[in-house]
């Protein structure tokens, strides 16, 4: 992968409760923003294949989407286009497939776009689509009747993090405070307001030990990236960003098959493979967008990716090391917590943030670059058993 693929343009729309926009509106806006972002210009007909990230499809009333949806909506039906669903890492994995399309030598220029419309339905139905209901996601096990959703799964991890690692609800809440702060500097973020530790801890308990403000919102959004052969990148942009690695890791499909609840092996595997592919160490990374669907998850991710040892993340966060101007900024975009989590758009929104930061175009939320390397991460699925990690760099 390394040396073969570059990002030449990224585009997204402001995430939020976009009742006034349809799925098609969001897709077209993100796509047009993405074309505009290619600073030396691109003829849309140069895009020779596309991957369309769409997680929920019919579950929450977006209709049954497939490859032709995207191709038709962007007025380019002469190219192969595939819809991709891979749980919460759908966006990160859609990007990976676009990169594989180029790295394989099959295509010179391709598009990855993810879009999700979650707010047209009331929260409970939207969550039901997300496996919060009795849901078929638990398959052939009586546990399908226990009403398990994202918050319950992560809360059970949080309980164990408290027990094994000594983490506290304050430790979790600090993630929300940091990410909301970062979100105030990001014009694309769903939430752009500060919160205090007290406000998090006094918010209603959703799933003990997690409070309302420990949970990311449900969000509408779309985001896109155009990737091309690395040796062609400068034809399209004066600031190409290179793909060092793109990987997916998996673990068990069900919680009861898993061993540890303070570690997600899907992330461990995705990150390990990605670092190997890139030929770099975790300490070479300047900043990261980690999948903070819940606050405790961000702490776990920082450890599982390999940035810090297991049990160290809470202290590093408290010491300010993960702040926007700390030694390893985590989620300068505001993260899922403040930036929002429109499932299939989330990973590509993180890619947008990486590219914007690596081009030093992030304005008030610009992080300091040393090696010019950023990492994107998603994790999700019924037992958080699938994870995507992409590593981007401003040099090949």
């Amino acid at each position, binding site marked *: 992968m390394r040396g073969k693929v570059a990002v030449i343009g990224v585009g997204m729309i402001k995430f939020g409760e976009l009742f006034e926009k349809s799925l098609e509106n969001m897709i077209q806006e993100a796509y047009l923003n993405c074309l505009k972002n290619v600073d030396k210009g691109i003829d849309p007909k140069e895009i020779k294949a596309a991957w369309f990230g769409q997680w929920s499809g019919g579950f929450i009333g977006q209709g049954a989407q497939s490859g032709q949806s995207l191709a038709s909506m962007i007025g380019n039906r002469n190219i192969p286009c595939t819809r991709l669903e891979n749980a919460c890492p759908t966006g990160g994995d859609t990007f990976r497939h676009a990169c594989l399309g180029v790295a394989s030598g099959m295509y010179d220029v391709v598009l990855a776009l993810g879009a999700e419309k979650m707010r047209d339905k009331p929260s409970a139905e939207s969550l*039901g689509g997300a496996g919060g209901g*009795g849901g*078929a996601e638990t398959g052939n096990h*009586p546990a399908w009747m226990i*009403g398990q959703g994202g918050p319950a799964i992560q809360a059970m991890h949080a309980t164990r993090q408290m027990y094994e690692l000594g983490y506290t609800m304050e430790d979790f809440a600090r993630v929300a405070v940091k990410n909301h702060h970062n979100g105030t500097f990001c014009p694309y973020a769903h939430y752009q307001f500060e919160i205090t530790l007290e406000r998090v801890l006094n918010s209603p308990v*959703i*799933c003990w030990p997690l409070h309302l403000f420990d949970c990311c919102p449900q969000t509408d959004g779309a985001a896109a990236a155009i990737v091309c052969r690395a040796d062609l990148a400068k034809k399209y942009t004066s600031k190409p960003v290179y793909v060092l690695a793109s990987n997916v890791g998996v673990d068990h499909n069900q*919680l009861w*098959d898993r061993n540890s609840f303070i570690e997600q092996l899907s992330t461990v595997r995705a990150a390990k493979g990605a670092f190997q592919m890139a030929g770099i160490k975790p300490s070479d990374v300047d900043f990261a967008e980690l999948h903070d669907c819940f606050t405790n998850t961000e702490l776990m991710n920082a450890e599982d990716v390999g940035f810090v040892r297991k049990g160290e993340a809470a202290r590093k966060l408290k010491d300010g090391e993960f702040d926007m101007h700390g030694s390893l900024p985590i989620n300068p975009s505001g993260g899922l917590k403040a930036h929002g989590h429109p499932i299939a758009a989330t990973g590509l929104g993180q890619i947008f943030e990486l590219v914007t930061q690596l081009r030093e175009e992030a304005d008030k939320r610009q992080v300091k670059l040393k090696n010019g390397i950023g990492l994107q991460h998603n994790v999700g699925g019924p037992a958080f058993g699938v994870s995507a990690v992409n590593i981007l760099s401003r040099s090949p």
Partner: protein
Amino acid sequence: MTQPAPASPVFWRFNPEVFRLIGIKCQDCGHISYPRTKICHECGSQKLEEYQLPKRGTIHTFCVNWAPPPTFEPPIMPVIVDLEGGGRYQGLMTEFGAPEDVKIGAKVEMVLRKLTTDRGLNVYGYKFRLVEE
């Protein structure tokens, strides 16, 4: 069948396992999985033997869900239980007084309870309750 489906196909397909608690134990890696499967989820081995899950164990982790999906009365308490002799079972606690009584490491046992209602019929299965020590 002359009658309309009385419950979901998923429930009926695994009806015997829901009540008899038959899982598998991998003869290569020792992983216990439930319900039965033909390939070990942990190591991929096909050398598996049927394994009777015990009804007792200790709580590995839990949470208190105050915002469960519709049809559940909050709070519900999902638990992951380390069964005696190995293997895990995921379910709901029942008959707990205060949520604070439920702790990691607490001893629990399975009891047959109503789990949900499907198309007007009651669906039964195991829940966990605390065991007095």
